[in-house]
């Protein structure tokens, strides 16, 4: 068994698509990190002063425009023209038409400053989404190409225990993708922390904050592994990489476009509860709120509160878990029972 595991690890690492996808993954993640690093600037007195000056310039420019408008208005009024269609009452001399200094917030002119504690959670989701795509392509191709090129048949001549071969391949794939996820995830975290430290703010990183990131990372890794396993299962069922890619595209079109349109036409409430991406969002955000803007529940204060539907991460876990299990069960059943011709 150790020999088979060793062979599969070597096979996975030797594959061109694996190497290419690792390079693309690193380049893609690197590009995002570099772009944000270049965009982020640490804000100090100089940046605040520059922003204040910019806000003051904007205010003064607005004053000039306003003054010009008042002058034009009064000239038109003196000519006896009807000014009601073109100018505000009293030629807009008073607020809210006259610009006020406090309307020109200097913070608008501050450069983007990355805040590690507040913003890194989003970047964990971005990272997980990109690595999941990597896992999907590598997972589908790994077993799909094996079936398609006859490699699987050759291997079964050496190792006739089919399920042992299938599970070894799946285990090696998931182990490999997890290793890439953990390694790149650690680098990703370090890069963004350094970005916060030198080009932004890290914020107060308490143990709780780190634990929260760790949990988000674990959920992200879980999604990556589930997507990889589904791709592996689909390609194994169809004995071709294209099977997994086809199902993914089909599911994307049906779920994200078809269901949305159909349920929208049927005016089904909370139509997005039937869309897969809602569960992905809930998985990352822990809960995702859907709102029915057509409904109204009056509160004691007389406000109108629309109905809400909450999708929790536990529900997402159930949806993705059952889906993954069903695909893998189909792959296992076919591996056991199919004639390999």
């Amino acid at each position, binding site marked *: 068994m150790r020999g088979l595991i060793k062979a599969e690890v070597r096979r996975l690492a030797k594959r061109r698509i694996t190497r290419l996808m690792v390079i693309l993954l690193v380049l893609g993640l690197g590009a995002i990190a570099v772009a944000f690093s270049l965009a982020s600037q640490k804000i100090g007195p100089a940046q605040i002063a520059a922003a204040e000056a910019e806000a003051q310039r904007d205010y003064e420019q607005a004053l000039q425009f306003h003054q010009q408008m008042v002058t034009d208005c009064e000239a038109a009024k003196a000519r006896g023209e009807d000014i009601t269609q073109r100018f505000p009452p009293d030629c807009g001399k008073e607020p809210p038409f006259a610009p006020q200094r406090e309307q020109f917030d200097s913070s608008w002119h501050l450069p983007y400053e990355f805040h590690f504690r507040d913003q890194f959670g989003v970047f964990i989701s971005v990272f997980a989404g990109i690595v999941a795509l990597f896992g999907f392509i590598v997972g589908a191709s790994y077993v799909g190409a094996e079936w398609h090129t006859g490699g699987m*048949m050759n291997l079964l001549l050496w190792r006739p225990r089919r399920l042992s071969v299938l599970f070894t391949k799946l285990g090696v794939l998931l182990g490999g993708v997890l290793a890439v996820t953990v390694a790149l995830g650690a680098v990703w975290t370090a890069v963004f922390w350094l970005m916060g430290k030198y080009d932004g703010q890290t914020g107060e990183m308490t143990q709780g904050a780190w634990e929260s990131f760790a949990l988000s990372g674990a959920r992200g890794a879980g999604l990556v592994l589930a997507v990889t396993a589904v791709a592996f299962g689909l390609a194994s069922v169809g004995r071709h990489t294209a099977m997994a890619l086809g199902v993914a595209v089909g599911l994307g079109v049906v779920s994200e476009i078809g269901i949305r349109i159909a349920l929208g036409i049927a005016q089904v409430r909370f139509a997005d509860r039937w869309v897969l991406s809602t569960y992905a969002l809930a998985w990352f955000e822990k809960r995702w709120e859907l709102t029915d803007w057509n409904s109204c529940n009056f509160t004691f204060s007389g406000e109108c509160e629309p109905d809400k539907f909450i999708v929790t991460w536990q529900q997402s876990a159930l949806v993705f878990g059952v889906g993954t299990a069903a695909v893998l069960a189909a792959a296992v059943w076919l591996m056991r029972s199919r004639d390999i*011709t």
Partner: protein
Amino acid sequence: MLSGVTAVLEIEGLRKTYRSRRKGARQALDGFDMVVEAGQVHGFLGPNGSGKTTTLRTLLGLIRPNGGRMAILGEEVPARLPEVAGRVGAIVESPQFFPHFSARDTLSLLADAGDVPQVRVTEVLELVGLRDRAKERVKTYSLGMKQRLAVASALLKGPELLILDEPANGLDPGGIREMRDLMRQLSASGMTVVLSSHILGEVQQICDSVTIISLGRRVASGPVAEVLAQHSGGGVVVRLESATDLPVAAQVLVAAGARVDLKPDHLLVTGIEKPAWVTRTLAGRELYVSELAPVTVDLESVFLELTGTAPVAGVHRQVDQSVEVPA
């Protein structure tokens, strides 16, 4: 073990039916039997669609049979196939490999998967003549080179039983001869070789015994010489000094109890005990034999006769179209 202490491969009553919603059921194997003795080179012959590849795939656990029993090296398969797989090398149908790996990588990965020492990779590459091209990607290989790689992969385990499906496919004449020599060499070293091939001249030259399959059933089996003898009919070709005497000679021989087929320049006489009887009988009527030769058959003619696949002028035979021969 099913029978016989020296049998390396035994199949009894193997049945396989392919079912398809669109095409319905098709019986690929219909009670097929086969026995291969240890140390032999055994030819496994049959027309396209006769069930050869299905048999080999079923034997190797790739296809599940609907009935029958099989044993390899004394172990019942598929139940004990995992235990015996390490002693069986096989290639089934056309060689298929991952195109972007080199031959060395391909064999090295198989060696790892089968717990075979890596030193065997170099040995088998040398044996099949791929040593100098071992680092090139398989996708750059010709069909013949892929075939050599397939044979190398089957030899990697140092198997006791080697099953080769069309190993000479795509090989050049030199390659075919090398393959023939390799088979002999392997057999001489004690390895049992089962060889499925359509190159019947090759099979006749290198095989000790054959099994012929048609329509999923065994139609002939045994040592090559025996199979040929069984189907030569013990007949003789008779030529006379004057061809005009052939009709008279035919009447004489028929009257004496022989079966005679009158041809334009000779008689084909069967149903006799000894060729000398023909000379004696005809000489008694003053008909003198100028040539008396036993009818010789080759494996090809026996194959065509048994499988009913001999070409007929103006008829386009379809795949699976064979004549049913009584068992």
